């Protein structure tokens, strides 16, 4: 038996034989039910489409203000960058770094690397740096917290609504539209298929 036909479950180390999947199917560990790998219908194409759309929305979400408040004629708006830089200036660089990493840097790394990987693949061309790219993607994945941030913005706006007139910014709508796209992109992105292509080439 060829060793490349085997897969060890990442959660319980149970050794199993790889089986070809029908389109849209998923292979689960026979012992602990962990998701081992999937076969996505038109996976790469869909991921590419979702990610390109998410990139544009990400740019909008970072350039435009998230929200504004108006108190006694004073208007105050803030973008994501304003929020992070204000934390830094106020003497909390560690919180600023945490917020910046989870809402700006990690998501743009994810979007950028997925495009770097999938655009050449779309034209049937496997790029050289595919191994480090997939490894970085795997490492940064838990630190992208767009959807948590979005919920946080909503909670804070509800709180402020009792004190002042709150207006929602363009970036907030961009966030709202981007999150389903990022989720859909992650759902259709199957690194296992790309890894299989890597090993078939080498």
């Amino acid at each position, binding site marked *: 038996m060829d*060793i*490349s036909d*085997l*897969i*060890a479950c*990442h*959660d*319980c*180390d*149970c*050794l199993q034989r790889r089986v070809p999947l029908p389109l849209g199917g998923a292979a689960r560990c*026979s*012992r*602990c*039910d*962990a998701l*081992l*790998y999937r076969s996505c219908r038109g996976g790469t194409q869909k991921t590419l489409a979702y990610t390109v759309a998410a990139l544009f929305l990400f740019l909008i979400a970072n350039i435009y203000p998230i*929200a504004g*408040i108006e*108190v*006694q004629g*004073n208007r*105050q708006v*803030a973008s994501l960058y*304003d*929020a992070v830089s*204000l*934390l830094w200036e*106020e003497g*909390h660089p*560690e*919180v600023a770094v*945490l*917020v910046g990493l989870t*809402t700006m840097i990690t998501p743009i790394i994810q979007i950028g690397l997925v495009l770097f990987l999938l655009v050449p693949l779309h034209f049937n061309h496997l790029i050289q740096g595919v*191994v480090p790219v*997939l*490894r970085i993607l*795997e490492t940064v994945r*838990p630190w992208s*917290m767009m959807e*948590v*941030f979005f*919920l*946080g913005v909503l*909670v*804070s*706006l*509800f*709180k*402020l609504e*009792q*004190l*002042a007139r709150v207006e929602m910014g363009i970036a907030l709508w961009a966030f709202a539209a981007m999150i389903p796209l990022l989720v859909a992109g992650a759902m259709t992105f199957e690194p*296992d298929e790309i*890894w299989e292509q*890597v*090993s078939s080439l*080498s």
Partner: protein
Amino acid sequence: MTDGTMTAAQLGFYGCLICHRVTECTTGDITARCSRCGALLHRRKPNSISRTWALLLTGYMLYIPANVLPVMHTGSLFTSQSDTIMSGIVYLWTSGSWYLAGIVFIASIFVPAAKLAILTFLVISVQRRSTWGRLDRTKMYRVVEFIGRWSMLDIFVVTILVALVRLQSLATISVGLGAVAFGTVVVLTMFASMQFDPRLIWDLQAEERSLQGNNDGHS
């Protein structure tokens, strides 16, 4: 063997946690690399138990200031007020936003506490070589990995409040030390769940089996 399962480690195979390729390994932990992606391979995550404990204990220590110290200072012309996480939730509750209070309670109080408790339980159960509910414990681990990120909610709430209510004649809001402690707890528990190796939950079963196998061979 009762259900015909073998672990990769029993056969001298190491599964790569990055690309999931199985590599045969004879040299031991130190030099093993994945044959496909070149990642460092380990039979199990190195020093998983002690590293998880170290991160958890630090998390517990910071959990106290995270909940006792104010996460936010609000100052206006006439009054100033400091809010802890809990007092913020109470404020939301008494002002009638019950569902909002519920969301913040789950994300900021329940999730961090549940994460610390579940990870502690998992580490202790592995140390005591427990055989109870392996599948259930593996699922608990997956829940911890899934919910961990949501406790960042309060940090983001404070961030936006600070950004919007600055330089106002009405009020100023600034970040409290509690938020720093709270953010650190979230990061520490995320690292703790990454360091914990769920395969340890199943390892005892594998050892028992291989012992049984050896005995059968001798008799």
